[in-house]
Every structure is written in C-alpha cells, then in structure tokens.
C-alpha cells in the first residue's frame, strides 16, 4: 500500500509499504477514506520529537471503512464507516474507565512505555503515528491502517455525513473542545486564546458554545486571525500589538478569566525569551519553547485558569512560576480524551451547531502528502488544514 513515511527532519516521502494485518484479537484493519495533517505532525516534520525511526508511517487523524476484524471485536462489522480517535485506549484500565482515555495504562508498547515512564514517571496512552516512545504504531496517512483495541477505538458515523464533516472528530475538534472545557467558563467570562491554528479555531467556537462572553485570539497570520474573527472572536496580532497591555485594557483592567494555549512547544516570535529558547534548544539545554505559556501566565486574571492544549514534550526553562503561584492560577492540560467527546460532538454536528469542514484549506491526494507537509510548514497564513485522500 502507499503510505506517508518519515525519514528524518523535513524529509517525508510517500512510499509503498506492506499492508497491515490483524495481529491481536481486538484489532481492526481500516481502508482509509480521508486523513489529515495535524499541527503536531509538524513537530515530527521539524525533528523535535525523539524516538522516531526512518520508516515510521505518520498520521493520527484518519477515518475509513472496516475491512477486517479480529475475533474479539464484537461491536463492529466489516463495511462499517468509522472515525478513529488519535489516542489508543484499552477501555479496561482505571483511566479508561474513568474517562481519561489519553492516560490509558495499557496501550503503550513495552519499549515505549519504558522510555515514557522514565521521562514522565508513568506512561500515557499510545498515539497513532507519533514516535516509538508513544507506542510506535503505524499511522493513518496511508491506504490502510491497523487499529488496536478497535472495539474501544472506533465510532461508526452515519452515511448522511460526508467525511469532511466528521474527520475532525478524530483529533482537533475534541482537542479544541476539551481545552475550552478546561477553561471552566462561567457567565461573563472573557477567554484569551493563543494560536489560531485548527485547534485554536475549534477552541474559539467551542468556547462560544460553552457560554463564553468574549473570546480574544492572539496570532500573527492575518488569514488565521480573520478565520477566528468569523466565529466572533476579537483579534490581536502580536507583531503589531503589545499583547499584555491590550488584554489588560480590553478586559477593563482585570485580565482574561482564562487563557488557552493552542500553540505549544514551537512558539514563534522574535522576542528575547523565544530567541533564548531557540538557542537553548540548539544546545540541548531545553527542549520546548514556551513563549506563549509565559505570556499567558502573566496575562491571566488573578485566580484564573490556564488551559493547555498545545503539545509539550520535554523540559521548559524560565517559566514564571512565581507569577502563577502568587496569582493563584489553576493549570489544566493534557492530551485529549477523544473517546469522551466523540458522541456529544457528533450530535452537535448532526444538529447543525457546527460544520467542522470550515477548517479545510487544501485537499490533496495521498501521493502529494510530502508537498502538503512542506506547504503546511512554510505557508501557515494560507494553510490551515490539509486533507489527504488515499
């Protein structure tokens, strides 16, 4: 089959790879009908994520048709059209049972779990196509994909909804929604969102769904800011505006009630702290660049909440913990518990509350996936979501 394969920094290629097959009784094999490139795939593309091996198939946002089932999968049948969460969850451990699906104890493979628990204390769940530390499972930017624990992993979707409307249930819609939920929105709240990529866009729309009074977004790509404005957000371009001052005044001197980080570890911007972060990253003294996070901590209202969606992997340096402590901030974060949100958000799509396909800027055949990555990395103003069709 054809698949998008990682070979190194800024080197991904569509190649012919062996077809996946059923290995364990709870597996399913899907024929992929649509798949997308995620902002966190760019961390892989840029070489930021350790434990990648040349030959790994990428892709964690995918959906398709069940073509083969393991003997233990009772809740699916061949021919079902399903969306698959990017988190792999066993469904039977303490965390899965308590709705913390991205914290599954059992889905990470033993070698990956060793590394992850050394680095983090305990291993989170495995992810599709996202390094060997997180399972080393082949991803879905391919013609076929093996889905472990398919009875927990797959949700059937109605035929009436085209792929483009439901594909983003796999990752970015629940991610934005969970980050918005983590803001603990109360009546009258103003929430500031850093990052107008796809997760930020869904976070903005989710925040209004959850009752936020005002949403202010911060980014530097004009078209992305315009896309957020179309949903009702007020926009700040950090190249033109002093963000902290603007937020203070726009909120009547109080500061935003919650701040949402939809940027993560590869923050942009030519501020001194970000330049220092890049230098440190080059010298391997720090791994992540938390420029947005630092701003959020300073900007947030006292007693407010910091909601972190944007991926971090390693160590941060010089984070203003004193500010966070003395203002009594609450931090909520984590990889999305996708399974928790699949049905509620599908219902919203079916009701017409939201049409997630707004986020798509480009559609390409799978064979052009490498161009898709390059384009997404280089032209972020024009490119929001690239959907690939095998």
């Amino acid at each position: 089959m054809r698949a998008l394969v990682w070979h190194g920094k800024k080197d991904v290629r569509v190649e012919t790879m062996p077809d996946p097959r059923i290995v364990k009784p709870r597996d399913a094999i899907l024929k992929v009908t649509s798949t997308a490139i995620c902002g966190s795939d760019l961390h892989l593309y840029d070489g930021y994520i350790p434990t990648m091996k040349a030959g790994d198939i990428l892709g964690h946002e995918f959906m398709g048709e069940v073509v083969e089932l393991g003997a233990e999968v009772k809740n699916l049948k061949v021919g079902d059209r399903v969306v698959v969460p990017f988190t792999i969850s066993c469904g039977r451990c303490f965390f899965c049972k308590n709705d913390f699906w991205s914290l599954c104890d059992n889905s990470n493979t033993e070698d990956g779990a060793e590394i992850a628990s050394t680095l983090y204390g305990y291993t989170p769940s495995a992810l599709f196509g996202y390094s060997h530390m997180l399972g080393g499972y082949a991803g879905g930017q391919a013609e076929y994909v093996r889905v472990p624990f398919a009875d927990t992993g797959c949700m059937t979707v109605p035929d009436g909804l085209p792929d483009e409307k439901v594909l983003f249930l796999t990752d970015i819609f629940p991610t934005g929604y969970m980050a918005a939920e983590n803001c603990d929105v109360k009546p009258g709240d103003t929430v500031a969102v850093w990052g107008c990529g796809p997760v930020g866009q869904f976070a903005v729309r989710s925040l209004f769904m959850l009752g936020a009074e005002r949403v202010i977004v911060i980014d530097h790509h004009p078209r992305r800011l315009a896309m957020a404005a179309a949903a009702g957000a007020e926009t700040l371009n950090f190249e033109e505006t002093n963000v902290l001052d603007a937020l203070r005044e726009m909120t009547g001197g109080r500061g935003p009630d919650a701040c949402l980080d939809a940027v993560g570890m590869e923050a942009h911007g030519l501020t001194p702290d970000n330049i220092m972060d890049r230098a440190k990253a080059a010298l391997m003294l720090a791994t992540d660049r938390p420029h947005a996070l630092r701003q959020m901590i300073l900007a947030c209202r006292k007693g407010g909440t910091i909601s972190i969606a944007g991926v971090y992997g390693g160590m941060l340096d010089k984070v203003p913990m004193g500010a966070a402590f003395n203002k009594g901030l609450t931090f909520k974060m984590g990889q999305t518990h996708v399974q928790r949100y699949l049905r509620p958000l599908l219902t919203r799509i079916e009701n017409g509350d939201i049409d997630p396909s707004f986020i798509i800027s480009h559609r390409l055949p799978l064979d052009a996936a490498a161009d898709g990555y390059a384009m997404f990395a280089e032209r972020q103003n024009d490119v929001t979501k690239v959907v690939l069709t095998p």
Partner: protein
Amino acid sequence: MESPTYPEEIDNPTVPAGAQRSPRQPLGEAERILSVVAGGLLAGLGVRRGGALGWAAGLTGAVLITRGLSGMAPVRRALRASPLEDQEARRRGWKSAAAVSWAVTIDRPRQELYAFWRDFSNLPAIMENVENVEVIDETHSAWSVKGPAGVSFTWNARVTEDIPGQRIAWTSDENARVRNTGWVEFRDAPHDRGTEVRALILYEPPAGQAGRAVAKLLHREPGVQMRRDLRRFKQLMEAGEIPVNQPQRSVNG
C-alpha cells in the same frame, strides 16, 4: 556461635527493598582536594584541546570538581549495595546481593491474579526472558532464563510459602548458577481499584554490583525485567492482550 540455619525468606521491610539506597559516601579531606585539583587540570586541558576528546576531558573534569567541592561520591554510592542487601548477603553467605522490587495495580480480582501466577507454566507468556518453566510437582519447578550476553541460566526452584489469593514465595536451589529468592503478593487496592501486585526478587549478581549496573544497561537485569513483566501481566489481565506495534519495528528492533 553463628546459627547454621537462616530463614528462607526476607522480612518485609516497610520501605520497598528495591527502593532502598546505600548510604551517602562522604569523601575524606585529602580525597576532596585531590578531586578538585585533578578535575581542574583535566577541565583546563579539555578546554585547551577542544574537539570530542577535549569535551570529554572537560566534562569529566567538571564532574571531579563538583565531587570534590560537594564532598560526596555519587558514582561510588550508586555502585554500592543498600544496607538491606549487605545484610541479606551476609545472612545467606552470598558474595553480594541485589534486591529488586516493583508493584502494579491491576483491575482484576485478587484470586484471579493469584491463580494465573500460581500456575508457573503461565509465566513465560508475560516474562520475555523466561525461555521455559517445567512444573515438576506442587512445589518444585525448573526454570530456564536468558541472562546478559544471551547466556542461559537454569535452576530449580521450590515454593516456600503459598497463601492462596495472597502470597507466593520461592527460593532457588543452593547450587543454582544465580542464587535467588523472592515473593509476589496480592493485596486489595484501595476502594475499587482492583488488586495491588507487589513482587520482590533477591539475587546474587554474577559479577557483583558493578556487573549489575552493566546488566541494567543491557536490559537483562532482573529489576528491569520485573518491571516489564509486571507491565505485561497488567496488560494481559486488564486489556486481554499484550499490545504490539507490528508491522512497525519496536525501538530496540
């Protein structure tokens, strides 16, 4: 007169045996000064030389300076056994002893987990280093295990304690290549969380404490293996399978 017999199992310490550390190793005055001076020289040479060797010398020098200034010898401490290990080695007449322990919580009933473990022929499914287990009778079994550098170790073991649903303890024969003893315990976890499974192995490392450190790096050390085996046990019992990422290679493959 020393007593000719000793208990066949170790007392349960309050602190898990595998988590105990050897005491701090403070350096004497003379050694501290020596360390700082040697470190300074090495660091200076390293800076002047540059290149990979220069970096190595510089870093080693920095470590030596820190060692001398702090007065502590962390490397030496890491290579020493804990007081418990020293005590157990003395009791048994072993050259040295290594204690490794670990615990996992598994959301299955205690009896079910005990029953799986008690039938030792089940264990190769979760223990990747165990090549074969032959159950001879109710208390005796023959084990064949892969050690470091691919060498196989075999021994006979006998069950010394068997409390159904709670505890299984064993010890190897006196003439085993790597003498070992241990136990696995099953305890109800708080509230509804299932069962806490705790295990301990005390073994005589073939190449002493230094060899043990090397074996850890090679992933063949019993403590490393125990962690992995207990993780597999949990995966099999809870999720019904031990997940693999085929067809992609694993990190070590």
